[in-house]
């Protein structure tokens, strides 16, 4: 089976987040406050065939502020690639970065997102309390801003449900 051009957290075929939202009929996402400065949210995805990441993106909410970093981790917590620290861009717009290309073998991964500002909002879903942790979403708070490598003391996400809309693409044309 071929991989789609974009693997997103809202993609039901590749993301438990997307499948929960689709199969429970709650697909709408809204501007949502980031759970806290230097909080990292790890969102599980599945890669079915070899996939070279050339674009990393996310969708800002109504009050983008501070700096954002989005990256990909394998199941062991090794960071495979990252957007690098990027100033939050336009309100309610998809924001794209072009990292150094990196390739993912088929497997289970996590799309990770973090922010250094408490006022940042992202386009996200906030499902019933407890849902995020029940589909494998994890979190940690880092001592300094940025995606760690490897990840640190990750825990099941049990509060501040933030199923952020973020994605990776195998093209720079998105």
């Amino acid at each position, binding site marked *: *089976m071929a991989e789609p051009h974009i693997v997103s957290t809202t993609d039901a075929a590749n993301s438990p987040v997307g499948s929960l939202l689709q199969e429970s009929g709650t697909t709408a996402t809204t501007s949502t406050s980031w759970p806290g400065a230097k909080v990292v949210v790890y969102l599980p995805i599945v890669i079915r065939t070899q996939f070279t990441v050339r674009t990393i993106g996310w969708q800002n909410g109504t009050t983008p502020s501070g700096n954002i970093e989005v990256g990909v981790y394998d199941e062991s917590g090794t960071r495979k690639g990252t957007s690098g620290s990027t100033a939050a861009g336009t309100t309610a717009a998809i924001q794209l970065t072009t990292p150094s290309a990196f390739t993912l073998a088929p497997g289970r991964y996590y799309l990770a997102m973090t922010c250094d500002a408490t006022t940042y909002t992202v386009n996200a879903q906030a499902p*019933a309390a407890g849902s995020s942790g*029940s589909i494998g979403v994890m979190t940690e708070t880092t001592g300094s801003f940025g995606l760690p490598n490897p990840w640190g003391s990750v825990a099941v996400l049990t509060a501040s449900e933030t199923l952020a809309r973020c994605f990776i693409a195998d093209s720079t044309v998105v």
Partner: protein
Amino acid sequence: MSEIILPGRSGRKASVFITPFSAESLVKINIGGTASAAWTTTNLAMFHPISLPEQVTVNRFFWCNGTTASTNNLQVGVYDSAGNAIKLGTSSTLASGASQPQFDNVADFMLYPDKLYYMALWCSGTTTHVVRANPAGAGRYGREAGIYQVASLSGGLTSTVTFAAASTVATCPLYGLALRASP
């Protein structure tokens, strides 16, 4: 002897948490939204069909407690398509921790690709809340989705069950199998 890993026909990897809502589920709901609600019937178990794209090692069972916990026991299990238990969780696990997932760390076991399995969730009472989707049309929903139910399991899930009744409960709980030992 080293472990032999069987690939599934699809070549796809399984989700890290397998639930009635994940890609491995044979239940297609797409209605209702998720919310906290009380378990509907004392000692009722629901059975949700799944099929895996690859051989997996299951590390833990889990369910998602709703806004009221600490009053009833829950139990998760996995059955083959004939109703034989492959693995049962701890039957005396009191719901603990409102509005968050609760894990049952069972001994690791394997499931294989392209076979029909049923995940089961049982609850001893109707006070504890779980997070669930709430499809309209009790009875019709269970039949359309291929969900079974078994009632009056006063001691929890049993080593064998008879799939004799489609679910009449208009509820699809969030629970399942974790392919991570932690967190």
